[in-house]
């Protein structure tokens, strides 16, 4: 019998991890033929193929999917930079009561960063109403945050040149480029994406 294909997905990888700090990713697997994947092992390997960690996926699928998943505890490399790692679901030999399952792998990247030096505080408001924008995305690549109910988000970054984006639901992105050398507060006024009205569209 031909081995069933295995699917593997990695998510919840933090956008940045301080060098040497612990973090967690979630790895989910499923059988392409929808055999339950509970109890299967997943492994994490570094860029050189060295084994870093192993874990066993849980008994119930991830909400909204048929992926069986597990949170895998990891530690960021000591060297700053972008590190390509791999999640692997090893081959599962056929048993008397079930088919074999092929191996599968998925690459993901871990960005290890030095300790932050500056606090970037962003206050996001609607440009017209001045109302605070909750849930706006704040990206100071590679750092990310989301504004709270006051429209405020805080990100800690090392000194350097950055591009800031703030984008909210139904709003066009606010962009600012510059050097960050000390704590700073940035007021981001976002224009609403009104789109064409029905009258404009239709007549």
């Amino acid at each position, binding site marked *: 019998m031909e081995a069933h294909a295995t*699917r593997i*997905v*990695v*998510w*919840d*990888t933090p*956008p940045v991890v301080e060098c040497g700090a612990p973090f967690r990713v979630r790895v*989910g697997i*499923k059988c*392409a033929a929808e055999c339950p994947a509970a109890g299967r092992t997943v492994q994490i390997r570094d860029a050189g193929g060295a084994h870093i960690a192993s874990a066993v996926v849980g008994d119930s699928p*991830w909400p*909204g*999917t*048929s*992926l069986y998943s597990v949170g895998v505890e990891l530690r960021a490399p000591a060297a700053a930079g*972008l590190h390509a790692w791999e999640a692997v679901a090893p081959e599962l030999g056929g048993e008397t009561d079930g088919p074999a399952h092929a191996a599968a792998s998925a*690459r*993901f*990247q871990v*960005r290890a960063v030095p300790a932050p030096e500056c606090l970037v505080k962003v206050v996001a408001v609607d440009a017209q109403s001045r109302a605070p924008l909750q*849930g706006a*995305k704040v*990206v100071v*690549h*590679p750092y*990310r945050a989301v504004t709270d109910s006051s429209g405020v988000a805080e990100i800690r970054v090392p000194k350097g040149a950055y*591009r800031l*984006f703030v*984008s*909210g*639901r*139904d*709003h*066009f*992105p606010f*962009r600012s480029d510059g050097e960050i050398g000390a704590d700073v507060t940035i007021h981001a006024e976002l224009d609403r*994406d009104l*789109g*064409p*009205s*029905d*009258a*404009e*569209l*239709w*007549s």
Partner: protein
Amino acid sequence: MAKNREPGNDTERAKTTAVTRRDFVKSGAAGLGGAALLETGTALGQRAGSNAATDWDYEADVVIAGGGCAGLTAAIRARDLGATVLVVDQNFDLGGRMLHSGSFVSLGGGDPLQLRDMKGEADKEGFVTSPPVESPEELDDSVDLLFKDVTDWSVLNRRGETPYRYNERELVRAWAENCPATRQFLMDNYVRFGRINGTHEGGGMSRARGAVCFLMLGDKTDIRAGTITAEDAGVADRERTSPFAPVQMNIASRFVANGAVSNGVALSRSLEFSAREKGVQFMLFRKFTDLVREQPFAGRIVGIEAEYSPRTHPETGELLKSFWQNGNVEERREKIRIRARRAVILASGGHSGNPQVRSMFYPAMREPAFVTSGYALQGPNGLDASALIAGLKIGANLAGMQQNLGSAATFHLSTRLGTRDAYTDMMPGHPTFGYRGSAGVNVGTAGFEEFIAVNQVGKRFFNEVRLPRRGGGGQFPGGGVAPNSGIEHKPYDWRNCRHEWVQKMYTYDHGCDAALAINEGSEPPHYYSGPLWAIFDQDAVARAEWDLRFPYVADNGYYFKADTIEELAAKIEKGHEFQRMPLKYLAETVAKWNGYVDAGKDPDFEREADAPMHRIATPPFHALAIMVVWHDSYGGLRVNGKHQVVDMRGEVIPGLYAGGEAVGGFQKHGLGKGHVHGFIAGTNAAAESTNPSG
């Protein structure tokens, strides 16, 4: 549900149609020869076997192909002037695209609405309590200024297009002269307008000329009283509309009053009510196919041929029924011939629903995956170029064929995803909802940040956040497309198109064109570009708060969800009718994209310059269809100022008129064009002497 489904009781109809003319005739039963002429008081004569050469099945003074914006207006106008009128329409209900439009009617030239708002007056019924939006100066208009505006050679929009330069001068002069009378005509036929608010694309740069139509929410739907129930208006339930209103009406408190609702329903149903009340006759499910001319390329137009074009309910399979039936002529024969004693008016719309015809303007739009706006309501025969095709067969000339490429409203990429009929939404409750299956999710322009857009092989093709941007403009108040806007605009001033200025204001991104480009999956001979897909993950759903459930999305081939990207690709290939091949690069594209996100750079399309980029990593994964919509039709039959169709020698084709999107030579978006066309055509068609032949 409306109680008042039958406009006009019998007494009232008798009053409006009781003129006993010899030409109001009706034969005996179909198939009997030598029909006796009977004065029945009906506005329609049915004849059978009356002429061996032509063998007419029906006859009327004025026969109109199409019951939309131009056709309904022409029908009422001709009927007002004493003609019997028969309208044939391919659909099950009247109104064409006017019915699900925004009802923004841009006229001007000192029309009665401009004068009303200049004086700060309300409408005669006192519904309009909102103050005027535009200043008296912005409403101070004239026919001459309007004419100058719509022939203003000096205006270029942000795509470098020239919305007025190539307009047919005789045609738009007649249009400008008839705008004031048409506004009054519409208001005399139950159409109620809110405040003038700006001007529609193609309606001129110098003055405010457009307003939406409204009805007032009330206990019953009563066109005479100007009221509509919340249920009929589709505003009682956020996710349900009605057979009366294909598209839910809008709250119109800003431009009318609290309790007012607006859109094409207020316009179309009001005109339809008036037409039925006045005795216009309608033959629905009847697709106009051909003109009958005395000789193939000479002589008078004496009638039309039309085919049975039934539409059934997508779930029950039952024949669809028009909301009102009063005045309908039931006829189910496959093909019939209808004699026009005075004239034929072609008002059956444009060519946006015919991929073969529209491809003469843009070969990429031969792609059948992309339909015209209002596809579900109009059905497969909507906007099918029937007038253009029939006109060419009898020697008609064409006009403005290049103008399709001069408007942002012609074809564009919609921000409404996940539905085939992406130009506007439609909720369950209208009988044609099933033909689209989902309302779609309007993500707005800003929402394009949340996904990658891929083509039929699963490759990205453009910077997503620039994809839906449209470079429209060129109407009052200006929007930066000319150095001076609004009342400061100077028509015919060369400085408006000084090259330094045009270079400065040009902002078009060409994303739609990239979407339609040849890709690895494009096969000869047509090289279809194929469907387009927005690919995103569950985190994007959470960020954007998209409501991915029925009625916004459905299992209709325009939305897919899967645990992995590979499975998503497989589902799209299997489930979408125009996905002709595997999205073989999709998994690779997503992996590459996630790498770009991590790196903070998109070397393919430089998206990092415009918006944040987000990983596509968290299951489940989603795909929403992105649609290119061909909306307007510019380019069509050439007509003169009377709306008589002109042949290729420049001579009038006797007995043939045309209006609306069937006509070329006037690059004006929307209803303001069609109504005036219908008004002029109806006026002149009714004045024709009775056709001696046929």
